[in-house]
């Protein structure tokens, strides 16, 4: 067990706002962790406490085995990239990258080589003399990350530095950040509210909502085994169905939704009969078919429905289908191969099929 970061029961309030509520989190050396959650859920607050810009009200933070309660920000070995980058406008790119080296008293004659090395790492060779305002958005990002890494910090913190970029550049920089992180093996905590970014970049994901950590785990784990409705909803496009338990078990439950009774997966806790549940299913787990098709062996559940909405997204089509059997609930689903068969027009009756292992049941109001 080589823990680089350990956060134990950390809370922080501002006046009446409880920004972070007893957060627990641990991160192995070399891992890339992404904290993801909606705006205002306390991500920045948590990051600022790790960086040392704010002190937690309660709880402990350990970095590289040492408790950092009494270590001011400038004595911690943490590189941080800010949402607005905060590149010093009066310093060139090279001077920005050299700044932490000078402040941390690196040997003077090693500094130019280190600056060159990190300019090269972020593919900015030869642009060291440029000032921040002479660089493009993507190049500024690169300078910011080089500056945060040039002094070989124990930990790299990223507070949504990519959120201001357009989508194409953002996707490119996500892969860039991941490449740099893996090349250096630096332990990293990234903050975002882009769930896609969390899935593609991370070894570990932490989902937060209203100051509370909802679930922590690997991207695959988060995707396959969401522990509550919030997580199921947050990762991916998910439909929510309200129902009542009519047959209970540890790992699967029968749920009455509207007039239909369906089987759903439970996450280990037994749910009482007649308890209200929220069921969730991801858009990509539902298959759309002609109304008269035979569901066959591929799916163990099927309902009829009417197409209410159709959104062309290029590589896929998103449908919203109203299923009368399920009490008129709206199901969202993707058709990933719209060219191989007819598109379904609005108001067309269709058949929807899915597998009961892809339908999750959570006790109602499990959003912590």
């Amino acid at each position, binding site marked *: 067990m080589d823990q680089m970061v350990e956060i134990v029961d950390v809370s922080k309030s501002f006046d009446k706002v409880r920004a972070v509520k007893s957060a627990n989190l641990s991160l192995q050396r070399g891992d890339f962790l992404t904290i993801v959650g909606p705006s205002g859920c306390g991500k920045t607050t948590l990051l600022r406490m790790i960086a040392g810009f704010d002190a937690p009200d309660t709880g402990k933070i350990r970095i590289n085995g040492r408790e950092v309660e009494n270590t001011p920000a400038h*004595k911690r070995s943490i590189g941080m990239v*800010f949402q607005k980058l*905060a590149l010093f406008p*009066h310093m060139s790119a090279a001077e920005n990258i050299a*700044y932490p080296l000078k*402040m941390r008293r690196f040997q003077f004659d090693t500094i130019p080589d280190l600056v060159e090395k990190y300019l090269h790492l972020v593919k900015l060779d030869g642009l060291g003399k440029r000032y921040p305002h002479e660089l493009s958005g993507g190049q500024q990002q690169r300078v910011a990350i080089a500056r945060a890494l040039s002094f070989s910090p124990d930990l790299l913190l990223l507070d949504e530095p990519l959120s201001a970029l357009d989508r194409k550049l953002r996707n490119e920089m996500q892969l860039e950040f991941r490449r740099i992180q893996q090349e250096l093996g630096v332990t990293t905590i990234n903050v975002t509210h882009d769930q896609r970014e969390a899935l593609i970049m991370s070894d570990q994901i932490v989902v937060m909502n209203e100051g509370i950590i909802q679930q922590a785990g690997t991207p695959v784990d988060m995707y396959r085994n969401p522990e509550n409705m919030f997580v199921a909803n947050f990762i991916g496009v998910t439909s929510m169905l309200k129902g009542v338990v009519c047959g209970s078990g540890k790992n699967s439950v029968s749920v009455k939704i509207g007039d239909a009774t369906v089987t759903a997966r439970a996450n280990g806790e037994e749910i009482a009969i007649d308890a209200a549940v929220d069921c969730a299913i991801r858009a990509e787990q539902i298959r759309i078919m002609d109304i008269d098709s035979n569901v066959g062996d591929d799916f163990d559940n099927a309902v009829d429905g009417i197409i209410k909405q159709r959104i062309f997204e290029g590589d896929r089509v998103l449908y919203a289908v109203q299923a009368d059997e399920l009490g008129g609930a709206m199901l969202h689903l993707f058709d990933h191969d719209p060219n191989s068969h007819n598109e379904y027009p609005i108001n067309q009756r269709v058949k929807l099929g899915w597998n009961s292992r892809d339908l999750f049941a959570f006790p109602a109001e499990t959003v912590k």
Partner: protein
Amino acid sequence: MQSRNSKNIPASWKLLDLAERLLVTIWPARLNKYVGWGFLLPALLLVGILLIGLGYIIEYSFHELDLATYRLKAEYSLTNYHTFINRPVYLHILGRTMLASIIVTIITLILAFPYAYMLVRTRSAMMRKFLLIALFLPFFIGQVVRAYGWLIILGKQGFVNSILTSIGLPELDLIYNFQAIVFGLIQYMLPFAILLIIPAITSISEDFELASEGLGANWVSTFRHVVLPMAKPGLVGSFVVVFTLTMTDFAMPEILGGGTSDFIANAIYDSFFQISNPGLGAALSVLLVAIGSIIVTAIFYFAGTGTLGIRQKTR
């Protein structure tokens, strides 16, 4: 659509429409490029009038006073400038003015910066209100009133001396000297300096300071390498304002100096109104304007026009 809804349009909108149509008829669109100049005109006129006045002063300065008639002689001469150079008292006054300007400016900026910083950065709304009120209050009290206030407090029978004597200490000469003027001027200039520095600090997002700290700089280094350079435009601006205001000040040396430590402005006043020599007064004025202009130009030259926000475009 316009006609269909015209009944529902508020009367004020109709009025605006009418005004717009009227405007279009009397002010054709092709004249629009002159609108900007139109707005500039009043300011240009003011500056122009000032320049005319300056022209007259320069003219006067080259005429010697005819002691027989107490009028300026018709012919041109450099007598007034010779007087300035040959009479040690004037050089002395110039030196004193410059020295005071430098001392006042530096001390004022040193005092103003933390105040402005605190005002911008404090998290306490109470604190900010207090600092703002304390900043604006002096503006309601004119310079002359303030100087007299200091006379009352620092004078021979003033507040401070009465306390000193009551506890058995000797009386001090707190007014009618150079230090009193410098003190009064600093107190007078402080709000101006603070007001000019506040926007400079506001424009530095706190992220820059946090970033600097996170990168390993303690607050002293952060101040030196990040806050100060980024606040430079505001600092240079307030340096220029405080320096020129001090250099041309009249009331403080007049009242708190009591004639013992005149500045150039006092000498100019005396030339015009005491010894009735407008030529000499004009020459002193010209010198004051020239020296001030040279210093300001030099500051902007060395600090870069970035201080005027012309060159630098920070993202």
